[in-house]
């Protein structure tokens, strides 16, 4: 019932890799928000969220991602999601967010 985040800055490709593990809900979403903002403050570069080990997300977590997407787009930066599990894919598709977050 918790969320672990590993963040790595990839010098070569000039992007952030954030690996999410666990669940994102109302209780853990603020952690994701803080980590994204922290990373973006250090290096204003693109962000990739690796969802391979993310088991659960709901609108609170999606909201954080949309929020980050909006802010980053203003600066011509992107945030994208990699390897979402089927349940998460379904939510991204229902909400049409796959169009912007999983190009």
């Amino acid at each position: 019932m918790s969320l672990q985040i590993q963040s790595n800055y990839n010098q070569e490709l000039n992007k952030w890799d954030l690996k999410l593990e666990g669940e994102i809900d109302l209780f853990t979403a603020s952690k994701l928000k803080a980590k994204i903002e922290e990373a973006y403050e250090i290096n204003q570069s693109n962000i990739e969220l690796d969802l391979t080990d993310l088991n659960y997300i709901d609108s609170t977590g999606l909201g954080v991602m949309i929020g980050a997407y909006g802010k980053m787009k203003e600066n011509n930066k992107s945030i994208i999601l990699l390897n979402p599990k089927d349940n998460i894919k379904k939510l991204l598709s229902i909400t049409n967010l796959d169009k912007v977050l999983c190009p």
Partner: protein
Amino acid sequence: MSDILKLSVPGKPEYVGMVRLAISSLANHAGFDIEAIEDIKVAVSEACTNVVCHGQVGFCSSYEVDCEIGNNKLIISIIDQAGGYDINNYKEPNIDCPKQGGLGVFIIKALMDEVIICSDIGTGTSIKMVKYCK
């Protein structure tokens, strides 16, 4: 005859995960497949999140999650005394123009087979959702 299970949960973020766990165990025993269990988990979470987030200032008392495990269906009601809202003001999100927030009820309706929301301003809200077992 169907079994009735009730939870009374403090209106705080840290307990939403517990409700989700309990509900997924129920749905599992009721014979739902993995996809349906995930649907139910998300829908219930969204409803609980709404209570916790939109309850009137200072709301932190408890809300109820009532489950009826019937023949081939699960009926879940989330009932709060958190002040209610005007459901006539509700607008579906424009999903072609993603914005932060406003997705909860939309997701619940997409994932569950039947959804009925009643809200009484000044009192509280109840949302009843039904999922059929295929």
